[in-house]
Every structure is written in structure tokens, then in C-alpha cells.
């Protein structure tokens, strides 16, 4: 066990956890932020995607110790009123079905638009291929990212 100071969504959390514990479980079970999901545990599905100092990161596959001192952003931290351009586009185009993977999808989409404000379909396919959606919302994700690019 070790003590960690974590900055999640600009809030300081002092947590006493096993240093090998994946960041995902610290976020969910210790910080109580459940918007970030568990899907596979081996960075294959992207449901646990968060931003670590702005970069999209699979929180299931990095130990909490790596995140200490870095800026962690989860789905709960991207807007107060569900009004980030990506969220607006997601709602406008009715992207989610079951919705379970969508926090991860949105975090990956925001990271893409931050580095590439006008992505092509090919850019989107490359940036988003780490995020699985079993309901098959891919074509709406593609469309919504283009829409978000217009809204930003």
C-alpha cells in the first residue's frame, strides 16, 4: 500500500492504495467516478479511456503509481453541463445505443480533435480503432466527430 496524491478533473484526491492497482479501479472504486468503464483489462477495448496530461490513455493498463503527479481527466471532467462540442454532436446524432463504451469513445474523440481539428474519415478510423463498440455505433461516431469539428 502506498499513499498517492491524484489530480482528477482538477480535484485533489489523497488515496491509500496498492501501487500496482490499475488507475481504472482507483478512479472507479476509490475516487467514485464511475463514468470510466471496465471492458477487457488489457487495453483492447478502450472503454476505460481517460486523458493523462491530455493524451488518451487506457486506464485499465497503467498502475496508479504512473499517474501520480499527472493531470487525469475523465468523462466527468470534460464539461459541467454535458455541453462539450463532442457531447453535443453525440446527442444530436443520437450516437449511443447501450452507451457503455461511449465514455471511452468520447474521450478518444476529444483527444483526436485536440490534435487534429478537421479530421478526415481515415484520420477518424485511425484514431478511433482502439475503441470497440459491440452495438456497432461506428458510422454515427464518424459522423458525430465531423459534426463536433464544425461545432468547436
Amino acid at each position, binding site marked *: *500500500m502506498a499513499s498517492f496524491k491524484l489530480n482528477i478533473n482538477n480535484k485533489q484526491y489523497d488515496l491509500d*492504495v*496498492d501501487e500496482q*492497482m*490499475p488507475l481504472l*479501479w482507483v478512479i*472507479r*472504486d*476509490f475516487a*467514485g*467516478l*464511475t*463514468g*470510466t*468503464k*471496465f*471492458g*477487457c*483489462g*488489457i487495453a*483492447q*477495448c478502450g*472503454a476505460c479511456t481517460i486523458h493523462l496530461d491530455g493524451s488518451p490513455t487506457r486506464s485499465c493498463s497503467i498502475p496508479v503509481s504512473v499517474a501520480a503527479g499527472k493531470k487525469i481527466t*475523465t*468523462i*466527468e471532467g470534460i*464539461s459541467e453541463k*454535458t455541453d462539450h462540442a463532442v*457531447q453535443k454532436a*453525440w*446527442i444530436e446524432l*443520437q*450516437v*449511443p*445505443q*447501450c*452507451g*457503455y*463504451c*461511449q*465514455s471511452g469513445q*468520447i474521450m478518444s474523440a476529444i483527444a483526436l480533435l485536440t490534435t487534429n481539428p478537421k479530421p478526415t474519415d481515415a484520420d*477518424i*478510423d*485511425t484514431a*478511433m*480503432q482502439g*475503441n*470497440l*463498440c*459491440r*452495438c*456497432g*455505433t*461506428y*458510422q*454515427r*461516431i*464518424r459522423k458525430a466527430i465531423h459534426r463536433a469539428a464544425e461545432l468547436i
Partner: protein
Amino acid sequence: MQQMHPSLKRRRFLQLAGITGTGFFLGLNTGCKSGPEIAAVSAPGKLFEITPYINIETSGVITIFNTKPEVGQGTWQSVPGLIAEELEVSLDQVVIKQTGGQSQFGNAQSVGGSSSVRGEFFTLRKVGAAAREMLIGAAAQQWQVPVEECYAENAFVIHKPSGKKLGYGALAETAAKMKVPAEPKLKDPKDFRIIGKSGGRPDIPLKSSGQAKFGLDVSVPGMVYASIERSPVIGSKLIKFDDADTRKMKGVLDVVTCKRIVGIFRHDSVAVIGENYWAALQGRKKLKTEWNHEGRDKLNSSDYAAGLRKLAAKKGLTDITHGSFEKEYAGAAKKLEALYETPLVSHSPIEPMNCVVRWNAPDQVEIWTSTQIPGDLVKEVAKEQSIPEANVHLHTMFNGGGFGRRLINDYVTDVVELSKKTGKPVKAIWTREDDTRLGPFRPMTFSALKGGISADGRPVALEHKVISPSIDAGLYPNFDPKKVDKTMMEGIADQKYEIPNLQTSFVYSPLDIPLLYWRAVTSTTLAFSHECFIDEMAVAAGKDPMAFRLDNIKKGSSAEKILNKLKEVSNWGQPLPEGHGLGVAQFEFFAGHCGYVVEVSKKGTGVQLEKIIAVIDMGTVVNPDTVKAQVEGAAVMALTAAIKNGITFENGQTVQTNFHNNPLVRINEMPAVDVHILADGGEIIKGAGEPGLPPFAPALCNAVFAATGKRIRKLPFDINNVG
């Protein structure tokens, strides 16, 4: 049930419904022999048979109860929307509450078979309409004006001549005392404000902000976590386990045995209980278990498939027979035969199985989970624990995908056992490896087909023999292997082509692992074999596959309408670029009817998907955008089943473990699906969730043939190398 004072009874009912307010409360009495009757909750003596649907509090808060769990198919909007339409409220004016499967709330609480909207379309509208009439009646009575001068709009009743208006909250108490109309007047479809309109799913903002609560997101005070070890060879008996190292791990609290109940199977399991999930999982890794496989470790997929191929030569149990197949086939000008093969596949919802249970001694239990079957879950838990159903309190959460996986309670009943044994609230979470390895799986079907063509190119004889294991064999102890298993024959007995001599038959092959319904069930494999073989017959007859289908389809059928629409929107018959090919398929089964035209192009030794067009026949549509979304997603799931690994066994163990070796189609592999909806507005309503799956694989494989001349008869196939 014991005699209870009416007011106590009412309070208990409200508790179950999760409502503290009073006012107006309308539901369906599901205890009537002649079918559900609309009933006020004040109805004497009947309280516990009423499914609540509408509550209007005097404060004006309107609650609509949704009895259909949301698994992504949009019932959080479409089902309350049916009520809201007739009640004259918009969905953003109401609170939607999910019911928890209490038997008192009726049986209509499962989602499967694409049945939610088509099953409830008229019933729920009537509940909404009855409430509207009672609210209007209450206002008319208060104003002392004729009912005909009043109408409802936007949660108000308005007196037309004077313009006076009263909100539903103000009318709630009076309305509750009005006579419940048995046959309220439904709205004219031309006045619909919700039905037939796209978008507006109230769960979507919640799912775009991390606020939607799935089973995995539940926590209750004092909760401990469980990670459960089961035999790597499914179903083996536990000989012994050594938990000495596990118990030394920090955060591990206990090690407890339990049973996984899946259909007729009861599988030994050992649960490691930890202070947090990570601790439980780490402790589980240190657990030493020994299993008696009793021969189960002999299962190999390649041997099993060889067995099915052998059985294909056997005469099956005849299901249906029209005309005289043997005779007409023998005399046909052209004869063809083919064997089609499909694999086991996993459901793999992205939310792994999980459940939170709090056992309250001596005999009450509270459960939080994602489930497709709240009613059956409550029943099974009550039965296993020998407690009354009313003692099982279920909170139905948003489902992070279902696809049939959550039609069985194997991830719930063992956690009930654990909470009872440990005396603590327990949250159990399956790893992805558990989910992938342990099933239940969609069974494979092999199909042996024979077709006869007349000299003038008509299909005169067809035999479709299904060789497969059985889902029901693992679910029901009274399964009879000497009878045709109709579930494994889905859709082919009433296939839509005019073939005078038609025969279908079934050969059963036991498979001792848990099998289960998968989105669109057996149609997902039989549509592939049937519709690819129809294509083979078209080619043998020297006909264009679309023309052959249209020439021989039952006239006036929805299949004919779908094919004609596909022909039109795909520009079928127009010249295509070099190396491109079009494939078509349609399939009707219990859930509904959809068809596809798929275009592929040659790319190296494989093909590339170019275009996907779908036509779905609906009758009447509640939310067109939701229907489109369902078909778009069904195509993705169907593509995964057609070109990705599937599930295989070696020495009794599942080869696939996680998404790296049991891959799903990713965004870069999936072009857009162009969905067209046929809706004549009639009273026959078809399903939306499943029909988009079955015809996709055959349309794709028929396109591969058109582009490359390679006939795909075995799934999965390598899209980058078609041979």
C-alpha cells in the same frame, strides 16, 4: 398472501414501485384471464396484480414506468413514448422509472425477440389514453362543462371555448376517482407527436456524460468484492482448492465456494472476497484449484465439426414437408448439393457480467444488476433461495449490452449465495477472460442442402437439413432429443420462395457446454446457409440472383416488397466497376424481416466492403432513427460473426480469452450502412433489434461470389484471403 390492511397494502405497493407520492396512479391489471385490463391503483383487492405505468403527483411530477430494460435498443424512449403519446405529455416532462421485475408488476418485463414495441404498442397506448380521458373528465367535472369541450395538451387540460386550463398535477386527485375507461379512444395516427418521430432518446445525454448507471456502477455501503474462479474446462467438478497463499494477500477477506447455475448445469466455483476488486482478483490468481474433468477435457472443435459433417449424411427428423422432395429432386434437370458451416460465437457485451447483492437476514434480498429478464430473475432467485418472490427486490440498471447474454441469471444467483454466506453486500465482476471462456455461446449450425432446378430454370425441389447442438437441451431438463428442436430450425420452414417440393429436417448432436440465444438466434446461421444456397441455385439456373429471387418469391409477401426496394435503391443490374460484385439476401423469422444488398471489390486475394444497403419492413415505426441505429449496429455484429474467429475448444478449454484473440470488428473495418425503412403504417408491427443480423452474412458472401467467383460455405472466412 396474508390479509393486509388496505392502506398498508397500498403503502407496500408504492414502496415496491419506488414511489412516495400519491395522486393519480394508473396501471394494468395483469391478473385477468381475458388479458390485461387498465386499472387504477385504488381498485379494491387487486393492488398486487397491477403493473404501474403512470403516476401523477399533486405537485405535478409525472412518472412513467418503463417495464422494458434498456439494452441499447431504445426502449427507454420507445416504451414510455407509447404512453406519453396518448397521455399528451412530452418525454422531457416526465420522470422515467425502470421497474424491477416484481411478479406483482406482471410478466411483460423481459427484452428479447425484438418484442418490446410490437408487443406493447396498443396495450400501453391504451393506458396512456385512459389516463388522458380521466384527466379530461376530472377537469370537465371541476369546471362543470361538457367533456367534449375539453382537450389535453402538454400536461394540461384546456377548456376550448374559454381557454381555461389546469395542469395534470392539480387534476390528479380528482382524476384518480374517475371511472377507468375500459376502451379509451386512441389518437388518430395523423395527430402523433412522438410515434413516428426520430431522435429524442432521453438516455442519450446520460450516456454521453458518464452519468448513466449500469450494473457495474453500483456500490452500496459495506460492500465487498468477489472474483470467482471456475474450472477452465467448463463444468468440471471441484476436487479441492488451496487458498493459503490467497489468504495471505493484502485486502483478501475470505474464500467461499458457490455454484454457477446456468440452465440445467450447476458448476462448482470458488469466490475470493476482497476489500476491493483488485485485491479479490489478485487473491484469485494465487488460488490453487484441482478439477475432475470427467472426460470434458476431450472436447476439440475440429473433432466436433468432423462429427457434424458425418451426421450430415444421416437422415434427420423431418420438420416440414411440402410436395415430394425425393422424387422431384431425383428427376430434376439440374441438381446441386452443399454443406454450410458456422462456428460458436460469444455475446461479448462490453459491460462484463456483474451483480451487486445484499442479503438481509433472514429472508430478504436486494439485487442491483443489468438484466434483460427482471421478472424471471426475481422468480429464479426466489426459487433457489426458497423465499417468496415479494422478498426479492431488484434494481434493474442500464445494460451495457445484452444481445441475449443477459437472458440467463448465472451471474446473479451465485452472488446471492455469496452475500448470504458472507453476511455482507457483495459485488462480483467477471473478468473479460471469464466472459469469453465460460459462455454461454451461440451454437453453431451446419446445413446440408440439396436443390433441384427444372429445365426452364425454376427451383423445383429443396431440402434444408440442420445438423447442430441444441440451446434448449442445456436449458430444460425435459428436452426431448427425439423431437425436432424448432429453435434450431428458425425461419427455414416458412422460407419465402415458391418451391413446390420442400423439406426441412433436423439432426441433433449433443454438446455439453452452456449455449444460449444470441441476437437473432438461429436465424443468424440459417439465413447464411439458406440464402447462399438460393444464390447457388440462381447461378445453376443461369439467372441473375435478384431476378431469380423475384421470379420465385411469394407474390405480395413482404419479401417481395423488400427485394423490390433493394433492387431500386441499389441500382441492381447497372454496370459496376471492374472487380466489383453485388450480393443480395433477405430473411424473415419471428422477430421481423430485413434484406441487404452488399457491394464488395477485389483487393489482392481478398475483398473490400464498398457499400451496404439494408431494407427493413416494419409496418408501423415508433422511432425511425432508433430503427436505423438498430440495423446499422446489427450489420456490424453480423460482420464480426462472419469474418472474426468465433469460439473454439482445444482439450476442453476455450481457446479464445479476450478481445485480442476473440476480436470484434473495429471502426476502420466498417463502412456506413444505408438503411431504408418500409412502413405502411399498418397494425402489423415488426421488430427492429434483431432482423438486421441474419441476412447480412449471406448478402456479403453472395457479393464475394459475384466479385471473385469464390463461394463461401464456411464461417468465419478470411475477408483478406477468400481462397
